[in-house]
């Protein structure tokens, strides 16, 4: 059966006439109206996921990376359940969707009770590490259960067809989705305004400690909030079933966009999330008409502009009290004492002696780890002492790599000048992006760095003539004298060690003390005459510059440069290294880089299920070392030293 050709001629002619006779003006208006509806339809599922994320963040202050995975699970569960209950039957379909949402909520409970509950007292953003471990595990779980092939869901009973609106066919299911958004918004509003639970959630969003002090059972509140947010994500996924294929890539595709919605809307604000979802949905629909090639980065452009204009999002408020309120106060960073210095020196000597003993392939691994150690240390410099977490640090790593590669490709430069040039491209970007970022704080700042990183990524990706697009720049190999693995290793080790020591010395220089003062109390720092914004700006640029050094070395190490160097996963890697090592320590990022990159490298070699094992290891490490590897080690040493004095136990206070 092949109805193609016979259908063609007649209808084709009709169309041909149509397009020539139709008055262009009304066509245009119809298109605009239809695209608006399309935007509203995509906004709904985005809103469901983002509102859950926003509520969870508002109450628990957890940046839940696993929210996209819950969305994916919701879709997969719905696919299975609807198939089992009978997709043709209205009860079977909608029942399946609802059960899938509830099940996703229960999975949320499991995640909260087993993992997150144990680490609420950890330093800010530390929980992000645990949720990322969950993301990795769920990717392999979904692959194991549902297999590699994309799933296509049935159409929803009663919403299988289309209506003609504005001269175009429009699917009825999309109309249904358009209605779902405001309905859920209304339900949430009623829930938050009219129920005791909702009141508690709002109160906790505003001041968590106060709610605890008033005797509210925080554990129950946190668990229920996490379950509720997860359920919304699951519902969002399940409702996509008649609309989109269920794939293993849904999780990461959704999570970054959901974050954008949450931040543009204002953290913790559900109404803001709806407005932002609509804004982004509609921009998408029209972006396609005007700039079909930049759809991905469009949302980040919007976020960047939005955050610069409205630093707390559309409906968000400046946080009450101090923003870094959770967990014990930052421990004082001290310059290394004798044993620590000795340990550092021994470590360096061991690294320097490795080439004499170890075979070549160990050197390759170590070169990479040393580069990552500098990358992580540079992020830690702005994140730890600077108090500015970055979700987009890969931008500067990538720009360093591109700086080197572009110098080779366009200027014909050899390795030495290219390596010198590399950090300046990153540093200049740091100066420009940093100027905007340091005017914000907390997650807003982090998201603005992410937006800039995505813009940088998209620039590298789209400027095919300059950068080769996603095919990258090839042939970025070291000069002849540094081509051997041993020599390049020593080159990397000496540059990275020097940069890391310089960063460390800076932390204990007057500038570093000023930076920490600005982090701990901006008002007091201003009062004693420190220019807080300028100090943070300089720190931002220095961190970017050092990431650029790492990027340049990485480019010559790999021989090629690709936009993936500044993509989100690379930024997340840096964040994980810093958090795993311990953000409140100075040597944490180095240990974290070796632990994380070394672990993932070994696991990738050992098993095809490395994502599950890596995720599980991260979760276990997080639970066992709630202050990071070095942080926990230091705390233990401190306790061991001061055992007789019970007062210290305050620092170790458990929830």
């Amino acid at each position, binding site marked *: *059966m*092949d*109805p*193609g050709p016979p*259908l*063609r001629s007649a*209808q*084709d002619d*009709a*169309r041909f006439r149509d397009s020539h006779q139709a008055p262009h003006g009304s*066509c245009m208006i119809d*298109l605009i109206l239809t*695209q608006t509806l*399309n935007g509203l*339809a*995509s906004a709904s599922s985005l809103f469901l996921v983002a509102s859950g994320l926003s509520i969870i963040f508002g109450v628990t202050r957890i940046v839940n990376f696993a929210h996209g995975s819950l969305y994916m699970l919701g879709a997969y569960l719905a696919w299975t359940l609807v198939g089992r209950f009978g997709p043709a039957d209205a009860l079977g379909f909608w029942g399946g969707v609802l059960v899938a949402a509830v099940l996703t909520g229960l999975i949320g409970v499991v995640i909260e009770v087993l993992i997150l509950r144990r680490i609420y007292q950890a330093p800010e953003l530390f929980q992000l590490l645990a949720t990322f471990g969950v993301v990795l595990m769920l990717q*392999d779980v979904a692959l194991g259960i549902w297999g590699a*092939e*994309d799933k*296509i869901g049935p159409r929803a009973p009663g919403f299988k067809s*289309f209506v003609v609106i504005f001269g*175009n*066919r429009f*699917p009825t299911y*999309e109309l249904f989705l358009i209605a779902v958004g405001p309905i859920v918004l209304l339900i949430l509003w009623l829930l938050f305004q009219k129920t005791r639970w909702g009141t508690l959630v709002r109160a906790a969003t505003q001041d968590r400690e106060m709610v605890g002090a008033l005797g509210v059972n925080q554990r129950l509140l946190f668990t229920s909030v996490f379950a509720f947010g997860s359920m919304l994500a699951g519902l969002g996924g399940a409702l996509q079933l008649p*609309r*989109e*294929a269920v*794939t293993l*890539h849904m999780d990461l*595709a959704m999570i970054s966009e959901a974050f954008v919605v949450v931040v543009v809307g204002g953290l913790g604000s559900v109404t803001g999330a709806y407005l932002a979802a609509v804004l982004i949905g509609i921009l*998408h*629909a029209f972006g*396609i*008409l005007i700039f*079909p*090639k930049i*759809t*991905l980065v469009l949302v980040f452009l919007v976020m960047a502009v939005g955050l610069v204009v409205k630093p707390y999002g559309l409906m968000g408020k400046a946080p009450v009290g101090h923003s870094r309120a959770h967990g014990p106060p930052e421990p004082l960073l001290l310059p290394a004492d004798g044993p620590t210095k000795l340990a550092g020196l021994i470590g360096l000597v061991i690294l320097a002696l490795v080439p004499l003993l170890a075979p070549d*392939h160990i050197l*390759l691994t170590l070169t*990479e780890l040393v580069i990552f150690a500098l990358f992580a240390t540079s992020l830690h410099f702005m994140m730890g002492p600077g108090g500015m977490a970055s979700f987009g640090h890969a931008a500067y790593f990538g720009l360093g790599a591109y700086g080197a590669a572009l110098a080779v490709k366009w200027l014909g430069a050899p390795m030495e000048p290219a390596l010198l040039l590399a950090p300046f491209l990153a540093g200049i970007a740091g100066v420009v992006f940093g100027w905007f970022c340091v005017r914000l704080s907390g997650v807003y700042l982090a998201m603005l760095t992410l937006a800039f990183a995505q813009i940088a990524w998209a620039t590298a990706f789209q400027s095919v003539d300059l950068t080769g*697009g*996603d*095919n*990258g720049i*090839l042939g970025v190999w070291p000069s002849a004298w540094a081509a051997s*693995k041993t020599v390049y290793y020593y080159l990397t080790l000496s540059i990275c060690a020097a940069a890391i020591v310089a960063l460390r010395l800076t932390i204990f220089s007057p500038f570093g003390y000023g930076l920490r003062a600005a982090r701990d109390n901006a008002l007091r720092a201003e009062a004693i005459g420190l220019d807080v914004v300028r100090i943070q700006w300089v720190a931002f640029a220095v961190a970017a510059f050092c990431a650029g050094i790492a990027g340049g070395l*990485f480019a010559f190490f*790999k*021989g*090629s440069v*690709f936009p*993936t*160097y500044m993509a989100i*996963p690379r930024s997340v890697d840096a964040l994980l290294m810093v958090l795993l090592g311990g953000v409140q320590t100075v040597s944490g990022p180095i240990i974290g880089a070796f632990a994380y990159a070394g672990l993932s490298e070994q696991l*990738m*070699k050992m098993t*095809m299920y*490395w994502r599950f094992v890596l995720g599980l290891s991260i979760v276990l490490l997080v639970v066992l070392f709630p202050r990071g590897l070095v942080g926990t080690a230091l705390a233990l040493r401190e306790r061991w030293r001061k055992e007789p004095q019970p007062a210290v136990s305050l620092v170790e206070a458990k929830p």
Partner: protein
Amino acid sequence: MTIDRRSFLAGASASATILAAPGLVQAQGAGPIKVGEINSYTAQPAFLKPYRQGWELALEQINAGGGVLGRKIETIFRDDGGKPEDAVRHAGDLINAEKVDLLSGGFLSNVGLAIADFANQNKRLYVASEPLSDAIVWAKGNRYTFRLRPSTYMQAAMLVEEAAKLPAKKWAIVAPNYEYGQSAVKWFKDLLKKAKPDVEFVAEQFPALGRIDAGATVQALEASKPDAIFNVTFGGDLTNFVRQGNTRGLFEGRTVVSMLTGEPEYLDPLGAEAPVGWIVTGYPQADIKTPEHVKFREAYMKKFNDYPRLGSVVGFDTMNSIGAALTKAGSTETEKLVDALKGLKFPSAFGAAEYRAVDHQSTLGAYVGKTALKDGKGVMVDWSYRDGAKYLPSDAEVKVLRPAG
């Protein structure tokens, strides 16, 4: 019985002598020949799980027949997670630590290019199985890299041949926004303009890979009122595009010409919503009755209790072509292998094919046909095999496209 250190050492050196003796006779022939296979197994499982199975089938057959050069072949699989920098790390590790004799694999074009450049720098052989980018054999082609699958150019050329026969004048295009999509569009436009100068391209959509906003994209294409559509999306993007396009009537009265859509990997998930009457490249696995293919398909079904996908064929053929190259070279030395691969004729599941000496591209072809629905499933009908050799530019043109020579 306990073994003390001394007797252990004595035993060990004695057995080492015994083991080493035949090694001396057979120069390099003691252990298996090692192939380092790097691919995005976790990032692209839908294609690469069947790929790996096809590979393992060929490997099993070769080794059951005594291997090549009197040695078994062993494969070390590595997952690059879809990142070129990780692929390069594996390449270095495979060569330096695992001492593999050659590299193979690659799914994404940029991963393939990264490994190819690494291979060139380190003077090691790389057989690129899947990456479709033309650059891998042309603009960035090098002595040490060969590619099995019909490239973007070849598949576009096969489709243009059919598209030029259509009466359609106004074309709309939808393609994923990365190198594969961009070059498929470029070749399709160039070649179609050459074949039929009066065509015009009225709309182009480039959704981000895996992130298509299908409703809005369909609407934007509809608004341009094209006579026909050229589609390059695949996977989840294709599914979403087809569903929205079906509901919104985008495909009614229009012919769609579509890259890869006939591959079971992408056609089967569509189920009963598979489009009808699209002109596609693909793989009608159940209907190909050539003896090579029947033999391959039966062995595959027997081993894995599942039907082959196109990935299975690519994995199977890559391994077999490597086996043929090793036999022809009579050695595992890289330079000899490279020389053997130039102009190497090898058996594939689709019939005989050859790695062209001029640009290291294999002449493996693809099936072009129309999609149809049969028992609630998408299938290909009216298909025919297009030999890849006929859809490549002339040698003179290739020499311009490939500076490496």
